[in-house]
């Protein structure tokens, strides 16, 4: 008999109230998720994969809107470093997002209308609490590992800090323990672009049928630059012109890089909700793991048995290696078991989503060795 809880395109409604960091509480919540592989008899082989800012639960299966392969299908899948033949793999859309989990575009049960800006402000820890409720529902007590890149790495760290007894190992890739002033600044540019779009309408656009796509596209364009590197952009585009022989002396996308960014912006708006973008960027801006533990990051990890693997990329200037080293420093100070490696890549922050054989090797070896 198949268990309805497991498989692709699952959705669950969790009714017990989720108490949020803001003091508000929310219920019920829906969580959209997918599982791959089989939970073994002693329920010890579960790996939770946490997605990044605009990611989703389609970690290893085709995306229903874009038709693209799963966003981490280089790392997760048959004969990949995280193989469903070995592990029971869970990936859930984060609270506040727009791919099926409760977020600002969802109906507020009190009114029957979309939450819009009445959706409570959430934090990374709130996302993790919602994931913990999902694991309870799935019957997973202790995770073999939690793994994520970027905002997913923040969740992995938050998991280890908040539910250490439920996490044997945590892998944080291209992540940070706090959002820096520069990180917040870039996010604020994106949010202002959305809110400056008249169609945003104070977040009440769901019923008008016209979303603030122009603002959201600009937000995505600005953010996308932070995911790349100067060297990567130069290599990919240089100053090459887009489908023309000469400058237009106008404001068309003369340069390939302009055309590329416009495309990134446009394709993003078809799959993402502007208000979700506001809420999730806010959650990452609020993230400061040390702050949650008396201002000392080491306190977040002290006395915990979780094993950690921290990976950074040398060309990542969004969450640079120094941020990963800061995490490692705190883990060492807390005498936690930690591995750390900086990987060479020209691709900037996005490197963790691309072909990264060294990352794959480290992740595979690390997860295999977790007792």
């Amino acid at each position, binding site marked *: 008999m198949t268990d309805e809880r497991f498989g692709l395109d699952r959705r669950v409604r969790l009714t017990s109230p989720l108490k949020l960091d803001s003091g508000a509480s929310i219920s019920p919540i829906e969580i959209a998720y997918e599982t791959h592989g089989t939970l073994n008899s002693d329920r010890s082989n579960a790996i939770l994969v946490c997605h990044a800012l605009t990611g989703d639960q389609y970690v290893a299966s085709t995306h229903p809107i874009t038709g693209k392969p799963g966003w981490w299908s280089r790392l997760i899948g048959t004969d990949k470093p995280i193989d469903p033949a070995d592990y029971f793999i869970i990936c859930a859309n984060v609270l506040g997002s727009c791919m099926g989990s409760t977020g600002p575009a969802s109906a507020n049960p009190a009114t029957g209308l979309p939450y819009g800006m009445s959706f409570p402000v959430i934090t990374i820890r709130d996302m993790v609490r919602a994931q913990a409720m999902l694991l309870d529902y799935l019957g997973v007590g202790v995770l073999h590992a939690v793994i994520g890149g970027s905002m997913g790495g923040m969740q992995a760290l938050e998991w280890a800090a908040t539910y250490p007894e439920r996490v044997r190992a945590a892998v944080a890739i291209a992540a940070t323990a706090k959002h820096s002033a520069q990180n917040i600044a870039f996010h604020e540019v994106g949010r202002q672009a959305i809110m400056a779009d008249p169609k945003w309408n104070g977040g009440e656009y769901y019923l008008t049928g016209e979303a603030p796509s122009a603002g959201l596209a600009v937000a995505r364009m600005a953010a996308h630059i932070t995911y790349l590197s100067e060297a990567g952009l130069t290599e990919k585009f240089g100053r090459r012109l887009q489908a023309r022989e000469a400058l237009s002396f106008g404001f068309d996308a003369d340069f390939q890089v302009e055309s590329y960014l416009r495309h990134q912006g446009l394709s993003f708006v078809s799959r993402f909700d502007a208000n979700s973008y506001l809420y999730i960027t806010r959650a990452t801006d609020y993230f400061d793991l040390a702050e949650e533990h008396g201002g000392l990051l080491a306190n977040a990890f002290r006395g915990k048995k979780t094993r950690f693997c921290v990976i950074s990329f040398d060309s990542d200037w969004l969450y640079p290696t120094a941020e990963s080293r800061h995490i490692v420093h705190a883990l060492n100070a807390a005498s936690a*078991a930690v591995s750390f490696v900086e990987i060479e890549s020209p691709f900037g922050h996005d490197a963790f989503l691309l072909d990264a054989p060294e990352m794959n090797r480290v992740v595979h070896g*690390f997860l295999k060795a977790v007792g």
Partner: protein
Amino acid sequence: MGALRPDLAIIAENVAPGARVLDVGCGDGALMAALRDKKQVEARGIELSRSGVAEAVAKGLSVVQGDADTDLGEYPADSFDYAILSQTLQTTRAPHKVLFELLRIAPHAFVSFPNFAHWRVRLALLWGGRMPMTRALPTAWYETENIHHLTIDDFRAFAAEMGLRIERAWFLTGDRLTSSAAANFRAEQAIFLLGR
């Protein structure tokens, strides 16, 4: 598992079972893996090279990419039973600071290094007039990572100056133990166990 390098084999034999060990400059983690598998040691490592770290982590070891000269300060005092610095002291920028950190982090430290006063080295310099290249020091002066060459007698004096106790010492020629008599002349490398 392949055989350990001779100096590492001696260190592995002499670490107490179940101890907590920090291996500074752990390479691909061969010693750490042996300590874990044979002595139930809880081992952590620091390694400068990316490839070394990747290999060690793939063995399931807890290794961080880091530099003995800059990153030892982040480990709390007495967080380990032993610190190990094998064939690395002579490559550090500030050996005295590294040694100080090792014995802050742990009450005991194993330190191994090539002996620059071995007779082959002396002869090469005396008769050749060029920086020696020997079995234990196979790299040309312009390529070697060794920036602070030292001898066994230098190390003994150095330990005394730093107020450190030499608890044990082993001397190797090739992969064979050799006596401590005239070790400064006869040994290619030395392994010291230091205490505070």
